[in-house]
């Protein structure tokens, strides 16, 4: 027998040779110290998400299985919940109200989006901006306005006859207004993502208008429609402000959580409702994620954008519809603003600043507004840095391949968690005396953390979209030139992505100003927020002051949007040299 061949000096792998647990051994490159910095930062982000997202959610699950004393009781809380008819009815209420809101909002928003994208009506930009205004306001502004229009002392109370606005009708109407802009944005994008060549081909084949609509337009917008329906349904089922203000005795899941936890201190049942609320939202979220993945393949780089041709009758009809919708939007928004200046509704309609001066400033509630602006500013700055930085590390750096997928999962999770549930989780998690982070409870910091996590996913997706648009090889080129990644990050990535960064910042600011759901559990007397103050003022019957506060919030959001707009314009001017040849 001949001697065995000498061992090679290096480790090479023969075909199908060393397989460990069925997996092929994959060598790893050594990490450069700059890679280690990236891995460290990414790990920090991962740990933060685990603590401020997974921790609270896990605590809800645990609480749902414990009794008041903290003993393990399995599913007993669920059984008890379903045995309480008043509570169980809330499930049905939430379901049908949300379904109805979806059924009303989607056709309206689709028609509006169709008018904006497929007709030659004038003032499209103005129409679009009016329709998007509700995004600048807390959802409960719609409820306040409806009370002024149709409430017991409402201007148009007589229109309702014996019917009350309080309860399901008010909730549905308010939610339709609040969800309309969200559906509209998705549908406008979806309808814009069309290839004009399809219509040209159909025209060449002599296809009729209706057939074109049914065979090209609707299938093309299919994913947008599904996605918008999911967003509206989720919004409706998890909104807290509207049913709180205009719901009367009509109970929904979101208001139940609040009553159970804040009113009755029944944490276990609150946790049960939280899980019940989490389920449908998680399902719609999964459907939406699936839809999004399909949609991206629809448009290729070679598509030709569609531009509508004038058609008198159709344009006229679309213009009529869109302007009526816009007028309703303005009437709805305007009413709360108007009412906030009315001296004494409905007896004295002279204009005054009484609600602002007496209702807010002298009542010591104006501080809530300052808190909201502070919160929004922190979210818009620190939140943006954290979210964009994490997105960059996830997309563009290497190393830590093992737990990168975990971080990827955590960043998309918040979208599937209703604000009420997240807020509840925070209470459970941070109120525990044993938690080393207990000191955060009741601070501004916890509000910032909660809000950033709550709105994490949308911001993250904005960042990822921008990052994906820049050349994937920048980091490879930098490494070959021995330039560490952070240098490329600050010299190239950030300047190129600045529009997206501003957009994230604006989004976080506006949402921090308007959000009610999560923070309603987390504020302390020192950190009351504007949106929470509106709820409390309304509850105390001081609806004029509530309207005033809501108006302040809308005005601030709008102002901030204008500021960002001008920042963007200034930025475009500065960067024109390299964007345009």
């Amino acid at each position, binding site marked *: 027998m001949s001697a065995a061949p000498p061992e090679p000096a*290096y*480790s*090479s*792998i023969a075909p199908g040779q060393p397989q460990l647990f069925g997996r092929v051994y994959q060598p790893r*490159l050594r990490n450069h110290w700059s890679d280690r910095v990236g891995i460290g930062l990414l790990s920090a982000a991962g740990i933060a998400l685990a603590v401020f997202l997974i921790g609270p959610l896990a605590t809800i699950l645990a609480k749902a299985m414990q009794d008041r004393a903290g003993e393990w009781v399995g599913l007993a809380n669920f059984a008890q919940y379903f045995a309480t008819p008043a509570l169980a009815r809330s499930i049905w209420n939430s379901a049908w109200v949300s379904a109805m809101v979806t059924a009303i909002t989607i056709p309206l928003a689709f028609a509006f989006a169709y008018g904006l994208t497929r007709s030659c009506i004038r003032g499209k930009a103005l129409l679009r901006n009016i329709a998007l205004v509700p995004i600048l306001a807390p959802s409960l502004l719609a409820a306040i306005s409806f009370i002024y229009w149709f409430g017991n002392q409402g201007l148009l109370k007589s229109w309702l006859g014996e019917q009350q606005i309080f309860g399901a009708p008010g909730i549905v109407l308010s939610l339709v207004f609040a969800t309309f802009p969200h559906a509209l944005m998705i549908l406008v994008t979806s309808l814009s993502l069309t290839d004009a060549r399809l219509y040209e081909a159909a025209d060449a084949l002599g296809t009729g208008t209706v057939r074109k609509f049914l065979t090209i337009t609707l299938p093309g917008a299919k994913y947008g429609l599904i996605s918008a329906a999911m967003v509206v349904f989720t919004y409706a089922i998890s909104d807290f402000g509207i049913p709180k203000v205009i719901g009367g005795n009509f109970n929904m899941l979101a208001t139940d959580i609040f009553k159970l936890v804040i009113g009755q201190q029944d944490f276990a049942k609150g946790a049960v409702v939280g899980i019940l609320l989490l389920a449908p939202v998680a399902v719609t979220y999964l459907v939406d994620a699936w839809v999004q993945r399909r949609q991206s393949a629809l448009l290729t780089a070679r598509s030709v954008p569609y531009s509508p041709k004038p058609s008198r009758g159709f344009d006229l009809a679309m213009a009529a519809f869109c302007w009526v919708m816009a007028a309703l939007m303005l009437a709805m928004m305007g009413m709360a603003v108007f009412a906030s200046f009315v001296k004494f509704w409905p007896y004295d309609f002279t204009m005054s600043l009484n609600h602002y001066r007496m209702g807010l400033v002298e009542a010591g509630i104006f501080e809530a507004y300052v808190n909201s602006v502070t919160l929004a500013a922190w979210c818009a700055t620190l939140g943006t840095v954290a979210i964009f930085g994490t997105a960059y590390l996830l997309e563009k750096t290497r190393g830590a391949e093992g737990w990168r997928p975990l971080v990827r999962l955590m960043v998309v999770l918040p979208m599937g968690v209703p604000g009420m549930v997240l807020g509840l989780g925070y209470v459970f998690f941070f109120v525990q005396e044993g938690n080393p982070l207990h000191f955060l409870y009741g601070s501004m910091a916890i509000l910032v953390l909660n809000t950033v996590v709550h709105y994490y996913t949308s911001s993250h997706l904005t960042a990822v979209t921008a990052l994906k648009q820049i050349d994937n090889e920048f980091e*490879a080129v930098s490494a*070959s030139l021995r330039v560490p990644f952070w240098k490329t990050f600050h010299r190239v990535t950030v300047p190129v992505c600045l529009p997206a960064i501003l957009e994230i910042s604006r989004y976080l600011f506006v949402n921090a100003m308007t959000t009610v759901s999560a923070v309603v559990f987390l504020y302390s007397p020192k950190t009351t927020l504007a949106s929470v103050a509106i709820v409390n003022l309304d509850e105390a019957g001081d609806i004029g002051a509530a309207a005033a506060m809501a108006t302040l919030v809308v005005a601030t959001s709008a102002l901030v949007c204008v500021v960002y707009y001008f920042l963007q314009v200034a930025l475009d001017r500065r960067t024109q040299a390299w964007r345009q040849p």
Partner: protein
Amino acid sequence: MSAPPPPSDYLVLEDIRKQFGDFHALKGVSLTVRAGELLCFLGPSGCGKTTLLRIIAGLETQSGGRIVQAGRDISLLPPMKRDYGIVFQSYALFPNLTIAENVAYGLVNRRVNRAERERRVAELLALVGLPDSGPKYPAQLSGGQQQRIAIARAIATSPGLMLLDEPLSALDARVRVRLRGEIRSLQQRLGVTTILVTHDQEEALTMADRIVVMNHGVIEQTGTPLEVYRDPATPFVADFVGKTNLLPAAGAGAGRVRVGDQRFACDVDAALVDSPRLQVFFRPEDVQVRGVAGETPNSALAVVERLEFLGAYSRLTMRLNGIDQALYADLSVNDLAEFRVKPGDTLRVAIPAERLRVFAAA
């Protein structure tokens, strides 16, 4: 500046493997890149050529095997510790930095003082023929110009190895042809060892010192452009590089094959002599019509089916007796005028024995 000359085997790859799940992208690739040469990885998409380049750059990690660059084992080194410059198909120029800033990008980090840096940038821009483009932004240059800037940026730090990943594929045909020559002469002037990845066989033939033809994660052949073109090692190489006739054939005793009803003399590997399933390979330009008569060895009658005018020459589609597959023959404009060929004609053609190669059929 009298560094010792690098060893002639500048980069050695030993048994490089890459597996993505169950898919074997590279099945044990070994090759050597000589100092100062331009080596080309050529193959269809999915053959593993880009993966191999990215492994050399440290952008992908091999599942097995070893890489030695200039005597140093770099198999497990991160990209920042390796010594190469890289140019991508997309140019990957930083859009918000000027051309000068782009070119200087790698210099800034190396404690080169400002004056020295500016001098080097000016020198590099002159080298790639764009001396005045420094203050411009990438979007203001054409694709071909951007690619030259990308090359200038890659060589700014004088790397030992230049990696070009399909550098010309995004450019239009005319620019591509011009830039081929420019890159090649630049590479020769600098003497930098270079690996070029391409799926364009013409690019490989015109630019490379040597070509590595790859398919399905293995090397099919390594050789000079002439060797690869004239003497393909496998039917795949014959078919992939250049226009090819690969006709079904059968062994017909020593030194002979039967193609349809014809018998041709040629070199046949002893192992293939009696095989009934062979392929015979020759180039369209190897088919002769001038001075071919009945007694010319390896001649046969062929019916012209189609005539395709391609400029300097025309391509005839012909058919031999007893064989379904068409045969292509390239005739110069002069030959065509002289023989007045038109579809339907019968023509006697000859293929010199030394131009025929025989492979076992796949």
